[in-house]
């Protein structure tokens, strides 16, 4: 089946080549980081996690987003998702691969990464995150590949895979819950110390994941014969729209608690992210434009996605999905992790700006994810189209 990835149009090879060149540049940057140390990044004593961990956090959501296709299809027998459920599973694989690479890129001693398994520590949420992420990767490879292979052979998938599919559903919830627990269990970090962090993560995941999937489906529709169908698209709009609204509801709850309770520690980070935080003579506000743009884009995306559905406009649909995806990428892939460090527990304000090498490595990991995604989707879509013909 994998041989399907070896035959493609010129466009396919140009795309792969472009991804490989980004990976090469990032690979070079990583050799610099590996020999110099993490000091080559913009991180500092006060802002100890940067763009690597924030990308990781966001991508766990993209991975968990696959659930929104698996659950309706396998539990509620929603047949319209039959053609795209594999896309959800394969997207989860690519996203988890990126997550694991971002964690490795962030380690000061990557050669010791296996210490997490050699010295298992159940009281650490990072230990559990390692288990749920690797487990989810395994489940999606297994379920996705076995089901697709059966389709390729023209038979129904074997019965034994069904329990693994069912297991993957709560498992998807677990990956984002445990990832939220990395943050929300830390005393002294007020911004993260909120019980709705895991629900908020899940809401944004169930919007951003399917949004990316829908964008890719629309690209596929333009460039190949693969069409996911109008009914599936409409259903995805419902899922993305409501999940995105839930995310904003949770964000509004955070604002209420912080500003109505008027507890300084709870307000500081929101101040920093949305209005700027004054400290001494200096005003610190380098994330403000991004965070405000995130809210505007997210709300506009929600409004537009329903307009796009009623007008059945693919162009508008792609635009609204892009708005929602980028909005949540800013919210989680920038603000959530970086904001948590401002101000520091000793109430110092240190801003963080990623370095060139850091951005190159980040781009390379994204490129790797898209490479994995492209190859997997190439296989899946070739199989589907072959069956259609």
């Amino acid at each position, binding site marked *: 089946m994998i041989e399907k990835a070896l035959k493609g149009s010129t466009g396919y090879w140009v795309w792969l080549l472009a991804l490989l060149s980004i990976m090469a540049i990032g690979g070079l940057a990583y050799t610099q980081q590996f020999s110099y140390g993490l000091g080559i990044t913009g991180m500092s004593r006060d802002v100890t996690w940067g763009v690597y961990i924030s990308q990781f956090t966001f991508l766990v959501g993209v991975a968990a987003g696959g659930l929104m296709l698996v659950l309706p299809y396998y539990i509620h027998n929603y047949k319209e998702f039959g053609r795209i459920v594999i896309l959800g599973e394969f997207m989860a694989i690519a996203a988890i691969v990126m997550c694991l690479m971002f964690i490795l890129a*962030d380690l000061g001693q990557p050669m010791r990464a296996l210490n997490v398994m050699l010295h298992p520590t159940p009281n650490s949420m990072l230990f559990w995150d390692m288990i749920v992420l690797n487990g989810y990767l395994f489940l999606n490879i297994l379920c996705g590949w076995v089901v697709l292979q059966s389709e390729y052979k023209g038979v129904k998938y074997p019965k034994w895979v069904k329990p693994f599919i069912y297991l993957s559903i709560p498992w998807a919830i677990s990956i984002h819950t445990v990832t939220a627990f990395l943050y929300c269990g830390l005393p002294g970090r007020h911004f993260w110390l909120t019980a709705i962090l895991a629900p908020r993560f899940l809401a944004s995941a169930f919007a951003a994941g399917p949004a990316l999937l829908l964008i890719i489906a629309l690209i596929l529709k333009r460039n190949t014969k693969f069409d996911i169908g109008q009914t599936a698209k409409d259903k995805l709009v419902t899922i993305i729209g409501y999940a995105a609204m839930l995310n904003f509801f949770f964000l509004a709850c955070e604002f209420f608690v912080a500003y109505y309770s008027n507890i300084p520690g709870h307000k500081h980070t929101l101040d920093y992210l949305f209005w700027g935080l004054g400290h001494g003579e200096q005003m610190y506000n380098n994330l403000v434009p991004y965070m405000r743009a995130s809210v505007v884009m997210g709300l506009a995306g929600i409004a537009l996605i329903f307009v796009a559905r009623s007008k059945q406009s693919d162009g508008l649909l792609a635009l609204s999905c892009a708005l929602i995806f980028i909005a949540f990428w800013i919210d989680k892939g920038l603000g959530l992790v970086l904001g948590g460090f401002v101000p520091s527990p000793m109430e110092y304000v240190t801003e963080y700006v990623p370095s060139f090498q850091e951005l190159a490595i980040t781009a390379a990991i994204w490129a790797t994810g898209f490479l994995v995604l492209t190859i997997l989707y190439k296989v899946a879509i070739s199989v589907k189209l072959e069956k259609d013909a």
Partner: protein
Amino acid sequence: MDSNRRDFLKLAGLTAVAGVAIPSAFGSLLKGEAMASGGPEPVAKTTGKRYGMVIDVKKFAENPGLAEKCINACHTNHNVPDFGNKKDEIKWIWVDSYEHVFPADSQYKRPDNLYKLPILTLCNHCDNPPCVRACPTKATFRKKDGIVGMDYHRCIGCRFCMAACPYGARSFNWRDPRGKDANGRPFIKAENPQYPTRMRGVVEKCNFCTERLAIGKIPACVEAAAEAKGLIFGDMNDPNAEISQVLKTTYTIQRNPALGTHPSLFYII
């Protein structure tokens, strides 16, 4: 019919098990909870050693340069590198101002000089350390004597402990501390062969001079402040220790005790 009876029996069995197990599980959970938070007093074990330190800030205000002496003693003893910039900074013990050491403490009017006091800050060696909870490899751990230690050879450099520490006590080796700057000046001015240097990519912090305690010495900073009696160090579970006497007779405060970390550092302001 047969299968119905079997289902019924299964269900009945499960219900019985659940009926017994769930309440008792809740019971034991709640009991544990009640024990763990039996009031505002710290619940630390009162048996065995538990090292602690009292920082008499007045003594440091009266003796300018004393805090720097303590910092130097610590940093030269432990081969703490000086990179000369804030971004890469590594510090085990340092001076900070009242508003940063006690940021949650608010008051309408305070003595003006309060905010100018040189307040020594270091790892709190919490009795309930969040950093130890967060570490995925047990590279940071709590010893039986209350000291929160670090294994530099096991640390993977994930910096989860730094996010977890509510006191900003931890530093990371962003670059090689054994290296030299552009002018050829080594980051560790004079290496002390009695204590290991670290490699890049690991976290470090104050270890209450556990290596000195092992050979019967007192911590380097305590020794440096001994003449002025700025730092009182000892086993808080020993009723005859000086620190126990001081804690019983003097009003001291801890940094952010509301977090339930039970710091082992006490301040006389």
